[in-house]
C-alpha cells in the first residue's frame, strides 16, 4: 500500500526539505567565508524528489544517495550534525575527516558512502540486496540516486542490467537536472526521454515532474511498493533543474534563461510551500516559524562542530586494513 501524502507526512517531508535547503544555504555561506576545505555541492531544486526517495525507504533498506541528496539523507536518518561534521572536517563526523562534503554515509545503517566515480554505487546497492535475499530477509528495498549525466557511465548500465537479471527491489532514481556540470543533455544522450531506457533493460519506468512534491511522493511510493512486492527494478526519472552551480565554485552561467523560465526551472520549495498552505491548511506564520527554528538549530550545530576542531594527524591511525596484523607501517617503507 502506498503511503499517502497527508497532513502529517507532508509536514515531515517539507521539514526535511526545509532543513536541507537551509543547510545548503549555510554551507554556501561557510564556503564563501573560507570555512570549508575543498568543494561544496548543493541540492537546490532537487529537495522534493530527494525527500520522496528518503521517505519511501524504511529502516533496514539500502540507500545510496548522491551529490544532491541532502533532503533524502535527512529523511533516511542522517543528522544535521553528521552532515556538518563531514562538511567542516570534524574528526567526530561519520568519515572522521578522512572524506568530506557529500562523500559520507553510514553503511552499517544502510546509508552507503558514495565514492566519486559516477554510477559506481548502483551495483553496490544491488549486492546488498542480493545479500539480503540470500540471508532470507524480505520486504526490503534499495534506492540508488544519480544524475542524468551518470546514465552515460558503463557502471550505470552494468548495474541496471544486473538488477534486472536478478530482479532486485531496486529504485534507480535519475534526477535529470538538465546539466552534467556544464554539459547539456544533448551531449549526454540521444533518446527522447530517459525513461525510454527502461524497456531495454526489462524494467518498469516512472517519469515524474521533479519540481512537484506531490508527484514525486506518489511516484516514489508506488515505485517502492512495486519493488517491495517483487516486480523488480524501477527506473524513476525526474525532470527538474539544478538551481545552483555544479558546485559553489561554479556560477552556472551556461544555464540558459529559457531553461530557467521553463517548467523544470520552478523551485520545488516554493511549490511545496504553496501546497502546504493552500491544500493542507498550514499557515504562512507556521512555515515562517519552522524556518526560523530550523535556521537556529543549524546555527547551533555549526557552533558545536566548529568547536570540535580538526583531526590530529599525529594521533590519527593510518591503517588501511581491517586486519590489524597485516598493516605494514603506513608509509610502506621499511625503515
Amino acid at each position, binding site marked *: 500500500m502506498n503511503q499517502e501524502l497527508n497532513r502529517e507526512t507532508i509536514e515531515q517531508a517539507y521539514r526535511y526539505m526545509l532543513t536541507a535547503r537551509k543547510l545548503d544555504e549555510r554551507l554556501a555561506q561557510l564556503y564563501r567565508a573560507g570555512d570549508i576545505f575543498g568543494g561544496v555541492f548543493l541540492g537546490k531544486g532537487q529537495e522534493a524528489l530527494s525527500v520522496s526517495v528518503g521517505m519511501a525507504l524504511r529502516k533496514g533498506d539500502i540507500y545510496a544517495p548522491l551529490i544532491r541528496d541532502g533532503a533524502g539523507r535527512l529523511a533516511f536518518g542522517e543528522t544535521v550534525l553528521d552532515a556538518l561534521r563531514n562538511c567542516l572536517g570534524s574528526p567526530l563526523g561519520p568519515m572522521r575527516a578522512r572524506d568530506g562534503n557529500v562523500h559520507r554515509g553510514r553503511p552499517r545503517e544502510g546509508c552507503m558512502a558514495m565514492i566519486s566515480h559516477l554510477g559506481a554505487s548502483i*551495483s553496490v546497492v544491488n549486492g546488498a540486496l542480493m545479500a539480503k535475499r*540470500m540471508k532470507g530477509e524480505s520486504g526490503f528495498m534499495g534506492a540508488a540516486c544519480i544524475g542524468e549525466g551518470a546514465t552515460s557511465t558503463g557502471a550505470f548500465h552494468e548495474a541496471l542490467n544486473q538488477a534486472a537479471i536478478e530482479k532486485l527491489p531496486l529504485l534507480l532514481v535519475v534526477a535529470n537536472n538538465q546539466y552534467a556540470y556544464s554539459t547539456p543533455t544533448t551531449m549526454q544522450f540521444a533518446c527522447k526521454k530517459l525513461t525510454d531506457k527502461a524497456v531495454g533493460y526489462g524494467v518498469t519506468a516512472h517519469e515524474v515532474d521533479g519540481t512537484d512534491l506531490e508527484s514525486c511522493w506518489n511516484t516514489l511510493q508506488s515505485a517502492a511498493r512495486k519493488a517491495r512486492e517483487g516486480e523488480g527494478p524501477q527506473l524513476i526519472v525526474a525532470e527538474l533543474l539544478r538551481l545552483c552551480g555544479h558546485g559553489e565554485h561554479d556560477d552556472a552561467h551556461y544555464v540558459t534563461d529559457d531553461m530557467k523560465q521553463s517548467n523544470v526551472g520552478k523551485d520545488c520549495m516554493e511549490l511545496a510551500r504553496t501546497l502546504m498552505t493552500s491544500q493542507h491548511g498550514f499557515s504562512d506564520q507556521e512555515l515562517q516559524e519552522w524556518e526560523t527554528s530550523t535556521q537556529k538549530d543549524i546555527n547551533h550545530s555549526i557552533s558545536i562542530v566548529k568547536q570540535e576542531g580538526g583531526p590530529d594527524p599525529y594521533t590519527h591511525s593510518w591503517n588501511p586494513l*581491517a586486519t590489524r596484523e597485516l598493516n605494514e607501517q603506513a608509509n610502506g*617503507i*621499511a625503515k
Partner: protein
Amino acid sequence: MSITYLEAIREAQAYLLKNDPRVYIYGQDVGAFGGAFKATKNLATEFPGRVIDAPISEDAMIGSAVGAAIEGLRPIIEVQFADFSTVGFNQMVNQAATLFWRTEVPCPITLRLPSGGTSGGGPFHSQCLESIYAHFPGLIVCTPATVEDAYSMLIESVTLDDPVVFCEHKYLYFHLKAKSLPQEALPIGKARIAREGRDMTIVTYSAMVHECLEAAKEMAQDGIQIEVVDLRTVKPIDTDTIIASVARTGRLLCVAEEWPWGGVNAEVISRVVAEGFNLLDAPPQRINAKDTPIPYHPRLWSVHRPTAQSIIAASRHLLRI
C-alpha cells in the same frame, strides 16, 4: 590420491561454502558449467543458490560484492581471466579498497584472478596484474605457488576482513600436483623458504617459484646453493624473512613473471637496500618478463618470460659480481 592446484582451489571453495553460510561465488559461467577452468565444478549443484552466473559485467560483479560484504556476506568473485579485471578495476581499487578506511566497515571480498602465461595465451589471456592492485592501499594480494597454498590461502583470504586479490596461476592449474590437502599452513603475509642455500637468495612467487627451484637444482650440481624465498603474499611483503635470507647469503636476485616497471621485484629490492644495504655483497638484480605485451607464439613467449635457463644465467652473473 593426488590433487592439482586447480582442484585445490575448487576444494577450498567447497570447504568455504560448506562451513560458512556467508560465502557465495559469483562470476561468468561459474554455475552449472563450473567455470571456464572448472574451478567451481559441481559447486552450484552442491550449494544451490550460492554459486551464481554473472553477466559479462565485471564492474557490476565487483561492485555488488562490496554491497554484499557490507551486508555481512563473504563473496568470492571469479573473473574469467585476470586480464579482464581491468574493466572492473575501479570497483576494486576505489570502492572495495577504501571502504574500511573511510567508513570502518570491513570489506571481506575475494577476487579470484586466473593469472599468468600459458602456451598460446597471447596478450590478453596471460597477464600478471598483482602489482597494479598492490599499488593501491587497502588491498591484500596473494600469489600462491603451491597446491597447498592455493588451498589454504584461498580459505584464509575469504576469512580475512579485507578485500583480497587472489592471483592464481593458470600455468599451475593442471601442471602442479600434491599428494593431499594441507592440515596446517603459514598465514597470509608470511613468506616461505622454498629451498635453503647459502650462496645467494632468490625472491620469487607464483609460477616462477618452480622455475627458480629448477634453476637452483641445476646450479646445485655445480655446488652452488641457492636459497629460494617464495613470497606467497606480495602485499603485504614479508620483508623480515627476505632480509634474514639476504643476511645469510649476501646476494639477491628477484624473479617475477610480470612486467618489470614498478613491480614486486622493484618493491622487494627497494626494501632490501633500505634495510639491509650492508648485508649485500653484490648489487641486487631482477628478472621479469620483457616490457612488451605478452606474445602469442610459444617460441616468442618462451623468451618473453623468465625461465629456469634465464634464471641460471642471471644467477651466474650475480655470483660473479
